[in-house]
């Protein structure tokens, strides 16, 4: 059972079935919307999990890349009249480029230092988005023109549920491919011993940078999808510090180094506050509480804990 759950194609097949079957359980558009948000966060978290769970490098500023993806779509469509999809590609390239440039110096850091440097980087991006009001509409955000493909305007949450589900599926397949490749082994090796990795001929700095860039592109695409789904974006909502913290929490909550865990973590952290928050004012309180409680009670994450139990409670 455990072996089955971790084999590549059963994960992909299972996920495809879940994405296709869930809509039969949705009583209203609201559910499609929440599920689409889960898909989008899951996509970003699958990417971040490659960086954190596999390569062992924390990023507390990853929402910054989501912001780049979201605002590329918004600014590209609104100011430059680009097609939404092209703007999304440009956003992904831009996020990758930014990650490449800042990753080089930042990824030399370890532990707390890396956490704080990435946090600062994320703050810088959301600061820039809030400050450059002429382009971004400032702290109140800006509208995103609807995506149009072959004359169809994509707007309903159900449409975006299926699109984001497809994107997530692709993201998962690519991530699973990578994990089972020499790059994947290099990533995991770096996580466990940088010294042994280097002695084995792995250019540790180059690999960290590659994974950082890749995870930034995942986040950027997720940000673009979020912009399309919501039709309106704000610096805090896409790139803010809280978003970055949520992404990291999703990775750890689901289980570091587990692709399925990334999706579960995203689902739990998106749905739980929706279910628990009766009053908008309690949002921060609940989020903080959920983060603390889950980290204390499930430091290894949901999916690895469950798998361990399936294997017969063994270590």
């Amino acid at each position: 059972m455990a072996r089955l759950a971790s084999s590549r194609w059963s994960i992909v097949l299972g996920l495809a079935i879940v994405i296709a079957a869930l809509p039969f359980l949705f009583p209203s558009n609201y559910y499609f919307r929440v599920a689409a948000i889960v898909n989008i966060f899951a996509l970003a978290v699958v990417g971040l999990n490659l960086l954190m769970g596999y390569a062992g490098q924390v990023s507390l500023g990853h929402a910054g890349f989501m912001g780049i993806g979201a605002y590329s779509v918004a600014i590209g469509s609104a100011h430059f009249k680009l097609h939404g999809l092209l703007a999304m590609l440009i956003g992904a390239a831009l996020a990758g480029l930014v990650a490449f440039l800042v990753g080089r110096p930042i990824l030399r850091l370890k532990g707390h230092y890396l956490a704080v440097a990435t946090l600062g980087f994320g703050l810088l991006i959301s600061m820039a988005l809030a400050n450059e009001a002429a382009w971004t509409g400032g702290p109140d955000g800006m509208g995103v023109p609807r995506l149009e493909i072959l004359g169809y305007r994509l707007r309903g949450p159900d449409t975006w549920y299926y699109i984001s589900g497809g994107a997530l599926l692709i993201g998962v397949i690519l991530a699973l491919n990578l994990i089972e490749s020499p790059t994947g082994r290099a990533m995991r090796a770096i996580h466990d011993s940088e010294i042994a990795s280097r002695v084995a001929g792995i250019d540790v700095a180059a690999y960290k940078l590659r994974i950082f860039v890749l995870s930034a592109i995942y986040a950027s695409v997720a940000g673009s999808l979020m912009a399309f789904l919501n039709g309106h974006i704000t610096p805090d909502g896409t790139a803010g510090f809280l978003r970055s913290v949520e992404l990291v929490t999703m990775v750890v909550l689901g289980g570091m180094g587990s692709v399925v865990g990334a999706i579960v973590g995203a689902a739990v952290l998106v749905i739980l506050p929706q279910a628990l928050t009766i009053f908008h004012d309690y949002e921060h309180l609940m989020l903080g509480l959920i983060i603390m409680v889950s980290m204390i009670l499930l430091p290894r994450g949901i999916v690895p804990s469950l798998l361990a139990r399936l294997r017969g409670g063994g270590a």
Partner: protein
Amino acid sequence: MSFPLLETDNLSIAFGGIKAVDSVSLTVQPGKIHSIIGPNGAGKTTLFNLISGLYQPSSGRVKLGGEDVTGLPPEQLARRGLSRSFQNLQIFFRMSACDNVMVGRHRHEKTSMLGHLFALPSVRAENARSRDLAMGLLERVGLAGVANKEAGSLSYGALKRLEIARALATEPRILLLDEPAAGCNAIETEEIDRVIHDVAKSGIAVLLVEHDMRLVMRISDHVLVLERGKSLVSGTPETVRNDPRVITAYLGTFGTEEANRA
């Protein structure tokens, strides 16, 4: 005399005033086993760290295959055919034993990330090839039975051999082994002894640090005795064993039991 594969020339490093390695020169020939012995804290591991690019020497040079490689980082040295094991294990604990060895194949694998993301047929074929080679090496060090176990769950003796297999997977021209038999039982030591022999026979140069005197005296072509960072005596096992300075300086502190066994 054949062309030396590794040469160090007056290699030195100090930590806070203490000269951990002090003007050590040595040469290692292909296919030969060159051992370094000396009491605890003599600087053997530090010498390895200097040669393998983990520490920068404060003075002196390292030459690999005639090329000056002083100060090059370990990954560059790996590409030039230098690999090593660690006294304090450096294992990829969360990976399977087989994956640990497959990491050693890294420098021979293609590194196009796009190919990896899309799992191109060539990548899958390469994966299979690396896996076969890794399994072969695990077989060679007697670990075939635990290939799919997580490395973190293996015994100390098994991990010591896993490190050797991983180092061999890089197909080195020179292999540095830091106390490969420490903590191993008699049977495991036997196995390691045989592997080192085979490795040397295949033309790879071996630089060995080992406290097990019987092993050292039996398999070495050349022995260097280090004391407080300085090279004390250097020669064949026979000359070193009979040198009075070694007996007092080294065996004296290390215990007569070893001397007798040797």
